[in-house]
């Protein structure tokens, strides 16, 4: 459903992503791992439209998206979370989710201005749908709390469900387990499987190896911007180059 071909991203003299070609397994948990500075987040940014690759193509559901902007890629069906939590802090929890749904809301400016029946209905339905999403992650009791008041773990959950709210078929999760305790990580494991049940494909960047090995169906390893290896968890764990990269490189 999504593949990248020879994607390269350069920042001045530095090649952050070097000729990376991968093909994700649909409706599975794909993980992207690699030592710090391997280019994982840059690669994410290239897919989600934050930056445009200098070379290469990204094809999602048959369409070339490498030149598209962030909001267009969201509309196309790819959503993401961020390494540093990027919630809309002054908004309530449910409003955050409703923003996530914005690509599905069809009211235009004039309908909003005049609060037409269509717009009022759409907002009501959006609110209910957003509550459903909150129930999916168990945050429904916090619907009207300011998102900044949530616990760290809940904030991460909110970010995930906000990304889902756009109806995304591909979810890019950038270190979703960062800062979570072991209980939260186990719950995340379960959540990710439940997300798969909805037909969504996941691409995960993570540093917690235990989580990665437990959860992933397929793993891609990046090192110094290039794709070092790919395979199922058992293969990756046994791969000598991967082991070398982690022991030799920085963590």
């Amino acid at each position, binding site marked *: 459903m999504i593949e990248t071909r020879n994607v390269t991203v350069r920042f001045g003299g530095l090649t952050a992503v070097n000729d990376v070609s991968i093909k994700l397994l649909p409706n599975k948990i794909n993980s992207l791992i690699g030592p710090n500075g391997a280019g994982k987040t840059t690669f994410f940014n290239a897919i*989600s*439209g*934050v930056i445009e690759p200098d070379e290469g193509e990204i094809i999602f559901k048959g369409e070339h998206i490498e030149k598209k*902007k*962030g*909001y267009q890629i*969201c*509309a196309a069906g790819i*959503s*993401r979370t*961020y390494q540093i939590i*990027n*919630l*809309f*802090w*002054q*908004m*309530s929890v449910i*409003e955050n989710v*409703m*923003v*996530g749904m*914005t*690509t599905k*809301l069809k*009211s235009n*400016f004039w309908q*909003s*201005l*005049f*609060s037409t029946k269509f*717009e009022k209905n*759409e*907002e009501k339905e*959006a609110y209910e749908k957003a509550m459903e999403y909150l129930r999916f992650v168990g945050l429904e*009791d*916090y619907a*009207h*709390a*300011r998102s900044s*008041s*949530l*616990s760290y773990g*809940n904030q991460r959950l909110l970010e995930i469900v*906000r*990304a889902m709210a*756009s109806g995304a078929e591909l979810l890019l999760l950038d270190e979703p387990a960062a800062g979570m305790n072991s209980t939260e990580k186990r719950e995340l494991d379960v959540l990710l499987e439940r997300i798969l049940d909805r037909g969504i494909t996941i691409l995960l960047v993570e540093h917690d190896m235990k989580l990665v090995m437990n959860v992933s169906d397929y793993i891609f390893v990046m090192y110094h911007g290039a794709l070092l290896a790919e395979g199922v968890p058992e293969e990756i764990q046994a791969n000598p180059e991967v082991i070398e990269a982690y022991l030799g490189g920085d963590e």
Partner: protein
Amino acid sequence: MNSIKNKNIPKYLIYTVLILALPFLIQMISGTTYLVMILCISLLYMIAVTGLDLLFGYSGQISMGHAAFFTIGAYTTGLLNHYFDMPLWLTIPIGCILPTIIGTILAIPASKLKFHFLSLATIAFGEITYYFLYTSPGGFTFDFKGIGAKPISFLGQNYIKWYFFLLVITIIVFVFKTYLVNSKVGRNFIAIRENTHAADGMGINVRKYKVIAFTVSAFLTGLAGSIYVHFIQYISPESAQQKQSVLFLTMLLFGGTTSIPGTIIGVLFIEFLLELIRPLQEYQMLIYGIMLLVVVVALPGGIYGGFKDLAAKIRGRKKAGTDKTDGKANAG
């Protein structure tokens, strides 16, 4: 549920009566209609500041040149009135169109700018407008002399009639503003203000929405200006200068952004304060400056924000475990 409604009805009744009786009370107490005129100007400024609120309070774009839109609206209406003797039901709508168009044109490149560069761009825009009006090609704006305009015939100089006329318009503006900010559009504005990056990631076309915010904002401020010129029957280039723009901003911040009561309080307070210090003309700038400093230092949420916090604290003691905003409510 019913008990809450019953509690509110007398409150709203009082407000309504107060609002309707206000000009008469002021006239009675002060003996002249001068303060009623100030009240009317306040209503117009509320419309202008509402425009600024949409731009800054909601979509987070700073404009330090907004008075230019006010002045352009005033000049367009005034000049149409002057040169073509157009009737007022035409001049005012057309008077709103020009600032709106200019606002859109300005917004398109401006939407790329980060906040401090945006502030410089808006200042430059304001000053260019001022100098253009001051030395217009062929003097068609009558340059430094400013222009006069005819009053609206059925209102003339009757400030009390003007008050109710403006009250209706202001209320209409407030209603539509409320619709807009409670909709997807308003939500997206706030998302852009809170986190432009994430807004983009969530599918919001940030530039488009920034331009929309700017356009609506320019329209409202221009509307205020084009009615103003028929009220005061005069406008001069000075109204486009930075001083006036900063005044609008001060009113907005003093009362508190993203809140209609805040806008009302902010405008009324500052406007009447300025009237109070009118005899102290020479200290005017000093007082402006101190006011602004006070707002920035002591009241980043504006007066209304301050009251809300205070009220919430008081309410918080009555109801335990409120799930409303502000709390640091945590869960496992």
